[in-house]
């Protein structure tokens, strides 16, 4: 019996999130043929989104509705999906590894008593690849049983192109779930300061590997070499209090694509890379020749920023006659 791939669509503010379409490319790469999309929400908005998904993908879509699914809640998603998916036949349940996806994915796995393989970022010959130790090690994974939850790292696959064929059928089902135990309030958008990413042609970013807050001065001097530049940071550097979270680039921060991205002392965790991989030119400076950041860099420099940046500044001053 062929394995069925369930693609769990995520949506926000009435729009299907792009990570949903990335799941379709992932399933193609793993060789999945039997696909069913599932989208959960409350009427009437969810039915519109289900039709759009069926149109764009050509997939069979199950649209599960309940008034208790009006807002995302982990319990509602888990209970509704548990009611829809029959694990007696082989299946993989594919979910984006977003803050929503990893919220309910492992819960669903535990509820269905099947393993959950999280943050998958590549597939080789049907074997799943995920990062460990900040991308230093890749684990090759084959789920042990016929069924599993697979959460897929956002940005690891391109979103699938819209399907040119006919729209898939949409089956609307009512999910008979109980109200969640939690109370959902309105979303909050914390005030943020503009650090100039939108206008920046050059972003110089600092990671934990710059060593100390004092060394930020070097990053700032390097940035001053360029006319339209901004300072970025990894989550780790922000957590250390070196820079405000407004500077954070990556999954929970901003996504940028400047002409030049210079990663200084950044190991290159996939969460950071997904926020900067589309930069035009990427230069990475790191003492560790195996740092994951070098895999996305156009130019790799194995040096310590403390000694290397001063050399760059000195050389540029000599060339331009301006000191930095």
């Amino acid at each position, binding site marked *: 019996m062929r394995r069925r791939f369930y693609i769990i669509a995520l949506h926000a503010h009435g729009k299907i999130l792009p990570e949903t379409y990335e799941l379709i490319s992932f399933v193609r790469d793993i060789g999945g043929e039997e696909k069913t999309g599932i989208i959960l929400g409350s009427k009437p908005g969810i039915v519109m989104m289900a039709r759009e998904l069926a149109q764009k993908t050509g997939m069979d879509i199950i649209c599960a509705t309940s008034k208790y699914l009006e807002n995302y809640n982990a319990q509602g998603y888990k209970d509704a999906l548990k009611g829809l998916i029959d694990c007696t036949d082989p299946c993989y349940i594919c979910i984006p590894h977003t803050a929503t996806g990893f*919220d309910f994915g492992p*819960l669903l796995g535990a509820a269905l008593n099947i393993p959950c393989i999280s943050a998958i970022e590549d597939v080789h010959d049907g074997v799943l690849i995920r990062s460990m130790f900040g991308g230093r090690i890749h684990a090759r994974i084959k789920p042990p049983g016929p069924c599993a939850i697979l959460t897929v790292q956002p940005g690891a696959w391109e979103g699938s192109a819209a399907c040119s064929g006919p729209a898939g059928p949409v089956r609307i089902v009512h999910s008979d779930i109980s109200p969640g135990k939690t109370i959902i*309030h309105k979303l909050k958008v914390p005030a943020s300061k503009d650090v100039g990413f939108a206008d920046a042609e050059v972003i110089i970013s600092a990671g934990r590997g710059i060593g100390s807050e004092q060394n930020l001065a070097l990053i700032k001097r390097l940035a001053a070499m360029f006319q339209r530049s901004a300072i970025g940071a990894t989550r780790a550097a922000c957590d250390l209090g070196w820079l405000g979270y407004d500077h954070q680039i990556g999954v929970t921060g901003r996504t940028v694509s400047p002409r030049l991205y210079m990663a200084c002392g950044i190991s290159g965790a996939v969460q950071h890379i997904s926020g900067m991989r589309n930069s035009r030119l990427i230069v990475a400076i790191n003492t560790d020749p195996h740092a994951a950041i070098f895999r996305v860099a*156009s130019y790799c420099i194995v040096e310590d920023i403390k000694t290397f940046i001063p050399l760059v500044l000195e050389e540029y001053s000599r060339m331009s006659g301006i000191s930095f």
Partner: protein
Amino acid sequence: MGMNILVCVKQVPDSADTIELCEGSSRIIYKEGTVFRMNRYDEFALEEALLIKECFPGTIVDAVSVGPDRVSLSIRKALETGADQGIHLRVESDQYLTPFARASLIAGFARAGSYDLIMAGIMAEDDMECQVGQILAEMLCLPCATSVIFQEMSKDEKTVYVEREIEGGVHECITLPMPALLTIQSGINTPRYPSLSNVLRARSQKIEMIESQMAAALIMDRTVIGLGYPRQPSAGEYLEGTPAAKASALLKILHEAAIL
């Protein structure tokens, strides 16, 4: 009044530089001199628990960790930081355990403990799975919120309001009934350093050791079929030569790309 809080702390190697792969197998070797420490995300969870303890007198904070003998050092660190009791769920293996196995062991312990609140870091820095907390919540039938960046316990200790950090700088706001489980995002607080009085207290304190027999069967549940170093794509060019030569080369590249 006061609550019983359980914080799950994992021990991880301080740096990926001291790990190697055993040739042809899926084992990780921790080189001699490998320094182990508490997972940073768990430090934020522990700090948040200690902040709750300060607001709600009578609250007890327990720290639990799964792992081989060396893990007791991180439990000791939790005691030094301010946890009241430490529990070591000992397993022989220093190798990868599935999140299901880890959660099962903790659930086996926590079931007996009548905890009002269980906290853990959002993920471990080594395995990066983001799963143990959620699976544990499901096993214990607790409501759960992940990626928590703010929490506020109600005065009557019956509910907890949390903000979850989701993509695009947005916070999802939820009130959970207690008992509950929260996984904590980094940056929620600034973890404290151990105080001298806590260090002295922790020195003589016994860590409760529980041998985990059950792990043997769970360890067999192998999902990882191999480990490897990521392949370096050929696209990136490593600049060669002396540091000064690399600096000149970089400036030339930026100049040719019309960035400088």
